[in-house]
């Protein structure tokens, strides 16, 4: 049976393929962090974390953690050669000042004009924003990785966000469990979709019109079930 949707690992793998050699990248807390595991061989990518580290590497072995050496998700990290520490104002100067090539974030909703909602779903509970509102402004490209629909099947790619906004017109590309979609001039432009999925079926689970500009490539991702 053909795969009907990508796993999270496969979405992360696909996003990782687009990160060019030499890029400075911030991966949002949680799901986006997984992208680093799929960094293609031979590419030098420098990862930034909001709490003041540039050039960090994989998690240490369990038991080897130094809890003064963590990322923004408060997970223990290690350092690659050429790493640097700096304070929070310098860290967000990197973010806000346009020095990062790419930020990859999760999303509750992405609108066709690039609006992003990813920090809270309503007014209940304890709100928490972290660095998301800063990251969506400043990085040269802001990508989102997400399931194509919510757990109860509602579109996450929408005409207009209904959840509280993180940023306006900030997202440039979305990697979902079904497709790769660019945002251009207020529209979703479909770049890749699962080969077995008809465009009509994809449109049906997308909350706004998917435009086509040139060819639609097949979204091809290796089986990562070992991951």
């Amino acid at each position, binding site marked *: 049976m053909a795969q009907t949707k990508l796993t999270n690992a496969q979405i992360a793998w696909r996003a990782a393929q687009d990160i060019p050699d030499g890029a400075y990248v911030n991966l949002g807390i949680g799901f986006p962090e997984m992208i680093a595991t799929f960094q293609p061989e031979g590419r030098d990518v420098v990862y930034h974390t909001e*709490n003041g580290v540039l050039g960090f590497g994989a998690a240490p072995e369990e038991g080897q953690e130094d809890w003064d050496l*963590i990322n923004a998700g408060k997970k223990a990290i290690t350092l690659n050669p050429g790493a640097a520490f700096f*304070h*929070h104002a310098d860290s967000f100067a990197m973010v806000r000042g346009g020095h990062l090539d790419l930020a990859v974030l999760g999303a509750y909703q992405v609108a066709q004009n690039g609006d992003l909602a990813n920090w809270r779903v309503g007014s209940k509970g*304890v709100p928490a924003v972290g660095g998301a509102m800063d990251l969506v402004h400043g990085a040269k490209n802001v990508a989102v990785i997400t399931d194509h629909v919510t757990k109860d099947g509602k579109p996450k790619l929408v005409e207009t966000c209904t959840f509280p906004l993180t940023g306006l017109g900030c997202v440039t590309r979305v990697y979902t469990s079904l497709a790769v979609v660019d945002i251009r001039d207020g529209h979703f432009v479909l770049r890749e979709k699962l080969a077995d999925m008809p465009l009509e079926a994809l449109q049906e689970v997308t909350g706004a019109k998917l435009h086509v500009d040139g060819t639609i490539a097949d979204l091809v991702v290796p089986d990562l079930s070992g991951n």
Partner: protein
Amino acid sequence: MDKTVSTVEEAVADIADGATVMIGGFGGSGAPVELIHALIDRFRATGSPGQLTVINNNAGNGGIGIAAMIKAGMVAKMVCSFPRSSNAEAFNTAYLAGNIALELVPQGTLAERIRAAGAGIPAFYTPTAYGTELAEGKQVEEFDGHMYVRERWLKADVALIKGKLGDRMGNLTYRLAGRNFNPLMAMAAETTIAQVSELVEPGGIEPEQVVTPGIFVDRLVEVAVPQQEEVLVREGVEY
């Protein structure tokens, strides 16, 4: 010039009721646990200082540090970017019961507001939060075709910070990612109190390697083997 004091008790002895207190650290890294606990001891013994406004990226974790301050009932308000954590029960409980106020600030704006206070910049413009509910009521303005939000400096009466090396003139270095908000808070408070893992003689820190120059530090105390907040949380310690 000797800014050192002998004990953490002495270091925090004059923090007043109602003070605004910046506390360094991000999660558990760079958190001045001993200074915080000395402040809790004082509150338990004397009922003071209470009604504090605490500025930190987070709102405490587990049962130690800022979480223990909240549980002790010393904190009237938190200013932070991310009050959520793996165990933020102390804040959550107080917040949902309406016993603590929250000013939520995007992390980069929080850092820049603190830096602005230290640098004498009363207000600045940032793209962050434009068009979101966290910019409601704030002045906005267009520069070069983009929209920005005006933010004010954020000052404090006291900053509690954690350094690695310190000399008696107040020059400091930090350990790894424990740097985070500490150097900014040192600049932004009326009185900056630092705990350091090792006191050295002036000159013991190379002038090119000083991260926080002594002019920003008022008082410092050696805590030779400081506790690490994350380790305490994982051990389930309750202060």
